[in-house]
């Protein structure tokens, strides 16, 4: 009580003098969160670099390898297939998801009645568990009897070997990934669209600008900050995709859709277990995503400055 009374009677300062309680309280409030951070994120992140220099087939006994794991990874054909798959998937996914999200957001935003309805419907796939998404689409894309090929057959298009052929499996994985996430990106862009001043469009209309002109000259530039957020998030999501692919293709056929996270998981948890390879793979994935995120921000900043 006395300390509290003292605090109020003094003139305000930037640092509160306070009693023992006030000084110690912030640390006590932070301890649980920071302890979990430290034990389950920061320590493993640092230890990951260390572990990637050892090899282990059981997680208990480790053998020093130096850069041997990296050498082994970077000279293995399997890794380069996985790296290429991941790059192809991520690029196609980011481009398609961003373009589709922009298109849907602009169309939904222009809608008067039914706007909330469409917004909700496009978001629904985001809610479905990715494991279930993979299951449904695996079933729908079945070559002989799947709903997609049946529908295509009905309009005279020959059946596509979706999950049987390597190329088409990758197409399917990209499309399903976009299907699953596009509503999420759409919501971010819709928020950006709502902050654009409608008067700009009115003025453009008076000057006789077409809808396309308005989109190109007003919408795209003013939406750019939101688009950058979407591209960054989609890049991170793209490089980390795993769960829906696991039940959609399982990484097949013959590894054609195996991406980096699955490579890490299988090396780490399916025999033959190679912890060192899996950890080194994680470090490489982190470096790539980190570098790309930085590049994304720099590019977007420079554009803003110009």
């Amino acid at each position, binding site marked *: 009580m006395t300390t509290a009374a003292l605090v109020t009677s003094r003139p305000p300062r930037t640092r509160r003098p306070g009693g023992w309680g006030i000084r110690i309280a912030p640390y006590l409030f932070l301890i649980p969160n920071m302890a979990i951070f430290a034990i389950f994120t920061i320590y493993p992140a640092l230890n990951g670099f260390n572990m990637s220099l050892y090899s282990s087939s059981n997680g208990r006994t480790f053998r020093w390898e130096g850069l041997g794991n990296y050498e082994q990874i970077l000279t293995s054909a399997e890794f380069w297939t996985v790296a290429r798959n991941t790059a192809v998937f991520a690029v196609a996914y980011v481009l398609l998801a961003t373009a589709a999200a922009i298109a849907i957001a602009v169309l939904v935003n222009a809608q008067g009645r039914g706007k909330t309805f469409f917004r909700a419907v496009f978001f*629904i796939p985001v809610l479905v568990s990715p494991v279930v998404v993979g299951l449904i689409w695996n079933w729908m894309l079945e070559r002989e009897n799947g709903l997609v090929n049946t529908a295509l057959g009905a309009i005279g298009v020959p059946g596509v070997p979706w999950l049987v052929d390597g190329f088409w499996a990758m197409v399917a994985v990209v499309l399903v990934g976009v299907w699953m996430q596009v509503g999420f990106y759409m919501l971010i862009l819709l928020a950006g669209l709502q902050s654009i001043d409608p008067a700009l469009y009115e003025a453009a209309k008076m000057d006789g600008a077409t809808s396309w002109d308005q989109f190109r000259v007003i919408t795209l530039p003013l939406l750019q900050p939101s688009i950058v957020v979407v591209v960054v998030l989609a890049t991170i999501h793209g490089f980390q995709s795993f769960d829906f692919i696991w039940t959609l293709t399982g990484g097949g056929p013959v590894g054609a859709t195996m991406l980096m996270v699955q490579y890490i998981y299988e090396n780490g948890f399916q025999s033959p277990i190679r912890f060192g390879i899996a950890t080194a793979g994680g470090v490489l994935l982190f470096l790539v995503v980190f570098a790309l995120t930085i590049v994304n921000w720099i590019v977007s900043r420079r554009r803003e400055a110009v």
Partner: protein
Amino acid sequence: MSETRLITTGTAPKRTWTSISRKPVRLSDALRVVVLTAGALACLIPLLWMFLGSFKTPTELAQRPPTLLPESWGLGNYTEALSRFNFVQYLGNSVIVTIAATVLTLAINSMAAYALAKYNFRGKNLLFLLTLATIMIPLQVILIPVYQVVASLGLVNTLWGMIIPAAATPTGVFLLRQYMLSIPDELIEAARVDGSGEFRTFVQIVLPLCTPALAVVAIFSVMWRWSDFLWPLVVAQSEAVYTLPVALARFNAELTVPFNLILAMGVVSTIPVLIIFLIFQRQIATGIANTGIK
């Protein structure tokens, strides 16, 4: 804007052509509704197809061409899935993990956010930056080292092993901190003058004021934990601790489980999140718009 109002519903584009209206419907408006409706159908049909399939028998599912509606709407697949597997247990595990993880996240994130928003102390900025920086380190890239920690703590094959490691979400701390900054300092100061302890002030004064932000964090935590797969897959190596997504993926991989039962389980795992979404639509939309978290 007046033209767009004439379109009565999004689901029936044809009506725009036949509806009685004062002004003619513009072609671009009609086209937009057609495109949006096609997109909406593409979003809904797969889920509807799963729902219909969950009532079909294996023979019906194997029919060529596939039939649209099931022959009967009996709940046979659902009851069989319940009785044949420890389905209730997986469901229970999922519920426990989701609720416990969300409660834990709310508790520790809000405390950390309060410290970062309303106190001045040494190392504050460093700790805040460190928190934000961990957004860059997703679980996927440190999967093996985190697993090592969890294993050495004896948490493999336990629900706690799924709950704790990802509970300290950086986005949750960030969102709550931003919200708490808007709470006036005088309010907290007044509570102190009244002799309220620091923790009591936090629980009785600050937390109730943060309900909207807490709700957003809670909703996202529930949706994410319910669908989460990779981490539970790694931790749950024995059947007793499978969550629904893990059980679904494992059973689907063993081709011995009939697909009609898998579809029924898929429907059951989807319905709760759909209900949450229908109730909290507005909070979800603003939450994503403000933070980009999921």
